[in-house]
């Protein structure tokens, strides 16, 4: 089995995998126990599995593990905790911007990537920035408010 070394949430890790094509998602969830990342479609269509690689949003369900060798991955666990949420998480909590919460990981990580690029996005920029993230409960209005609130925080 090959070993893949990279950083996750400011920590160095190495993960064994029999398959270089194995999506990062399975390494994060099952090898590293970082289960904020959710499997939604395996097709890069829904965004539930979003993580940051070197600050950019990527779909961990369709990113082979070999592609993150030596790079820096950030997951939702790396942002904050219930006691010390980061500003985006705090804004989602303040707006109660979740129903079932299955998409929340991807929404917050995509918002993080958006705010890294555009500190003060317009409504349209938020809609575009999170445009590839689906929420079946359709909590979009609150998620929009939360991202705008986070940008001002």
């Amino acid at each position: 089995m090959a070993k893949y070394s990279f950083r996750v949430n400011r920590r160095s890790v190495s993960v064994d995998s029999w398959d270089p094509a194995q999506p990062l998602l399975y390494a994060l969830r099952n090898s590293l126990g970082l289960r904020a990342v959710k499997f939604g479609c395996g097709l890069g269509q829904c965004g539930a599995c979003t993580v940051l690689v070197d600050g950019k949003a990527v779909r961990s369900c369709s990113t082979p593990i070999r592609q993150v060798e030596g790079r820096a991955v950030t997951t939702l666990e790396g942002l904050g905790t219930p006691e010390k949420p980061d500003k985006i998480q705090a804004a989602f909590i303040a707006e109660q911007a979740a129903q079932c919460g299955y998409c929340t990981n991807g929404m917050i990580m995509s918002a993080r990537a958006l705010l890294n690029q555009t500190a003060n996005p317009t409504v349209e920029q938020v809609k575009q920035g999170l445009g590839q993230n689906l929420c079946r409960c359709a909590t979009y209005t609150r998620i929009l408010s939360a991202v705008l609130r986070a940008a001002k925080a």
Partner: protein
Amino acid sequence: MRRRDFLRTSGVIVVSFAFGGALREGAAAQGVEPGKPVDPREVDSFLAIHADGSVTIYTSKVDVGTGLSIAMTQMVAEELGIPVSRISVVEGDTALTPDQGGTGGSTGITRGGIELRQAAATAREALLKLGANADMTNIGALVGDKRLDLKVDAKAPLKAAKDYTVVGKPVLRPDVPKKCTGTNLFVQDVSVPGMLHGRAIRPPSFGAKLLSVDEDSLRNIPGVRIVRIQNFVGVVADDEWAVVRAARTLKTNWTDAPTLPGSEMLDRYVRNSAVDRDETLVNRGDTTGAVPASTKQLSATYWWPFQSHASLGPSCAVVDFRPESTTIWSASQGPHGMRANFSRVFGIPEDKLRVIFVDGSGSYGSNGNDDVAADAFLLSRAVGRPVRVQWMREDEHAWDPKGPPQLLEIRGALDSNNRISTWETQMWLPAGVQGARPLLAVDDAGIQQPHGRGAGQISQNGDPPYATPNVKVVVHWLKETPLRLSNLRAPGKIANVFAVESFTDELAAAAGIDPVEFRLRGLTDQRAIDVIKRATEMVGWEARPSPNSRRQAGNVLTGRGMAYMRYKQAENYVAIAMEVGVDRSTGRINLRRITCAHDCGLVVNPDGLRNQIEGCILQTLGRTLHEETTFNQSRVTSVDWATYPILNFREMVPVEVALIDRPELPPLGAGEAATAPVAAALANAVFDAAGVRLRSVPFKTESLRAQLKS
């Protein structure tokens, strides 16, 4: 706080869910919990008071992201007279919670909350007699994990609504901080020692038989074991990616079974399907009498296709099969129903089978949760280890039981005063069949099981809520339907209200009367009048007949529309108004504003309620604009988010909600009602803007463009 957050050793329950660590609630906790009552006549079935003064409440009504849990907590806190922060909730565990029925039909508050409230009121009376002080700060010392041994007293006095301090407040949901930090446990995250990952390989067509399995096709994937039971074939391994690859790679040969009619022209297929029986639901006055030639008469046909629950996360279950005691972790909305059905199907006594609810991806009814649990059950039983199965995207879209196709024909007439004189609705709906819905894996494995069919109360709201002397509603219950069915949010009502409220608008247009005025003329119920007035005032309703004569601004036609209904003709009152632009050249609908006035009696948690209403409306907007399960002769062909699109972020429209609180009335559920007027409000707004009547869901851009050109 919820079950898995606390660790209690004082006798009630020991639970510790920790990521990466040991998670073993099933058999162990059953030992720790000798004979906790679950009889819904007993107060102790609903409440446990601990030595530290905290209280655990037990309910079979589960929170699937609806905010039900905090609302029930508020109701108990109010009645017991303790703060919300002292209460934890255990939900949907067949070993620990009383059976209050599954979570569906908007009964979470009306049954779950009301029963808990009565148990709490009974407990408060008893505690005061035992010497509790008014704010219950000494109940820990007084009771300290002992049982109260009390029957629930249906007459225990309830607090007066005017004295409420907790009910009616926007208390924050305790699950949200966890969901926002990745620390909430979903069933997809459950891991138990020794657990394997599994996947089932579904046949290429409904009813296909497995001819052969080429085990050698998996030679390059390590550690995979194949399980075959007649036509059921699955794979298990320690590594999840290995089973995902294996399920995709395994070569299997099947018979072809092209038994489906295909979804093209499904409305015609339904119209011509064999009828099992007719049922007359409403028969008032005489709809058959001759109508004077001078009156205006209309008829129209409306269509709603098969739709999927389309859960964002594919269904998942973990099953630990053991001859002495089997545990299923599931996000099913009906853990007790699942236990009863699995017990019958697999021949296990109910007391040796425990179903534990764990949060899942939103299910909006019965998605693939039961079927994936059956997959995991068969695999666990075959390999003697706990097995976790999560469906893949195509499994969920193709194989979840579907919301039914609905065809409605409505005929109506206006009298000489332009009031509705006659109304006749005919519905073509799949007939119910007694018994549980068949589980996919169980059929495949050749195990006998019931082949029931049902999709909930799908024939409600087929009659107009407006004064009409002659009304008849008839259902033609059809013998067969191509796909498996189940309850999908607001079962049947969304399509029925779409038809009834669209047709009402058609009558208003024929009468040349403003659609709001036309409705108000037929209403005397003040609660109905209030929601209609409120929603339309909020949108800035311009009173005039439809279509809009001054509608064009460049290429864009503008208009407004509304719809009203009373859920199940007995529950919530909801009115929704919308403002739209329609692009003449492309047929694109640009929805600009949505307003909603909502009356569900007593409001328990206004913020949770608003969240539900916003979600109801936007989710149904997606169902109206985009969603249709398609299939060919063999299989479902809408199998991902490209072939089965739902509302996306860019299409989001702000929703303005007015809550009409009625503290003096009982609370009603709100997870469904606001879905029902959405499609009609949109169709009516598009008609006002463009003069084109949309009667077939989904409202595809191409079809509207074609109608605009003709």
